[in-house]
């Protein structure tokens, strides 16, 4: 006798008999089947009615389990509830994590100090200076007599700098700098001004004539104006301006612009190179007394 409903019913029952041994399960199923067959033979009821009067297969199976002191199997929840729970808990914990991060990143909400007002731990800053630079809170002002020093050269090394160099009429090095961090001044056969341990500096330096100038900086703007010195300068990124120079110049710039304004009635021999960029035309002189101007830019411009 082939009946889908009966088979389905018995299948569900068997599934829910769980921990009962296989042989006992088989016997139970067989007895229920036998009952159904008897009921069909001896009454007018349909299979559906007979199965209905037996009750839900899960419940009948549970009764067998209970009577043996076994735990009835829980009705299997549809998996969607499991996933909804996971989803909810996951979202909840992610939100919590997000709030914690916000809390640590954006507090203190308001901080006021001498530099300005900072909101949300510095995300919004209303500081007195509009620039991004750290405040230049240190000052060097020095006048050094160089006559007795027998200086060969003046060396300035910096990180970020705004440097103006010009000549003095005497033998005095005049340093007027604003900076942060540390600055070193060494005076022996060469005069060294070292801003390597500071981030930013703004300097006006007046140097005596005819001493070799070596200026090395990472980033910034260097202006040489009206100088009668030989100059060697290396700058990574930025701008170098030469105006009215009476001396040999060797300048290396990685990225940026070199502007060379020749002094009138002065002869220069130009050796210019640029890897990527543009170069203006400079009139070179072959005169042996001409000042040798070597300007090398990797990426950028050389202009008049």
């Amino acid at each position, binding site marked *: 006798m082939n009946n889908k409903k009966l088979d389905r019913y018995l299948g569900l029952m068997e599934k829910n008999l769980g921990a009962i041994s296989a042989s006992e399960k088989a*016997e139970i199923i067989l007895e229920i089947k036998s009952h159904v067959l008897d*009921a069909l033979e001896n009454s007018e009821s349909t299979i559906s009615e007979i199965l209905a*009067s037996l*009750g839900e297969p899960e419940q009948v199976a549970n*009764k067998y389990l209970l*009577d*043996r002191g076994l735990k009835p199997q829980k009705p299997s929840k549809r998996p969607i509830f499991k996933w909804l729970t996971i989803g909810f808990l996951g979202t909840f914990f992610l939100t919590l994590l997000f709030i914690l991060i916000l809390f640590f990143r954006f507090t203190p909400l308001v901080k006021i100090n001498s530099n300005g007002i900072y909101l949300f731990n510095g995300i919004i800053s209303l500081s007195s200076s509009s620039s991004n630079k750290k405040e230049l809170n240190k000052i060097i002002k020095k006048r050094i007599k160089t006559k007795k020093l027998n200086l060969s050269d003046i060396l300035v090394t910096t990180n970020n700098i705004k440097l103006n160099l010009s000549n003095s009429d005497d033998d005095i090095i005049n340093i007027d700098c604003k900076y942060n961090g540390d600055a070193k001044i060494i005076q022996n056969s060469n005069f060294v001004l070292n801003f390597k341990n500071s981030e930013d500096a703004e300097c006006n330096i007046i140097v005596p004539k005819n001493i070799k100038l070596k200026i090395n900086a990472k980033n910034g703007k260097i202006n040489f104006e009206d100088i009668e010195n030989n100059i060697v300068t290396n700058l990574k990124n930025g701008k170098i301006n030469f105006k009215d120079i009476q001396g040999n110049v060797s300048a290396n710039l990685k990225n940026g612009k070199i502007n060379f304004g020749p002094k009138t009635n002065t002869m220069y021999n130009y050796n210019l190179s640029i890897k990527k960029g543009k170069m203006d035309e400079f009139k070179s002189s072959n005169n042996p007394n001409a000042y040798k101007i070597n300007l090398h830019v990797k990426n950028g411009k050389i202009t008049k």
Partner: protein
Amino acid sequence: MYFVMDSIIKNWSAQIRKGYLDLSILTLIDVENKIYGFEIISKLKNLGIEIKEGTLYPLLSKMTNQELLKTKWETEDIKGHPRKFYSLTPKGKQVLLAMENKYNEMATKLEKIKKSKIKKED
């Protein structure tokens, strides 16, 4: 008013039923000597004792595990389907006897309670 009474009686009947059912089934099996599930249901129904099929079979299984009943599968003839026949074990007969005694005891006590009142009024 009757609605409340109805539910009170229903509750009480349900409580009584459980013990009464066990006794009824064991008695029936004892009387018939050998009987299968569907027959038990039919005969109890004819006597006015209602039992759900989904309750009986697990109960028979329990009693078998308690060694009150023993079982045997028999097929009527070549064409028929196998049926599981139940009969009482010696232990089952003892338990049945004890239950009957207990049941009679309860009935007797109930009578005594009624009689005690009549005595008072004498």
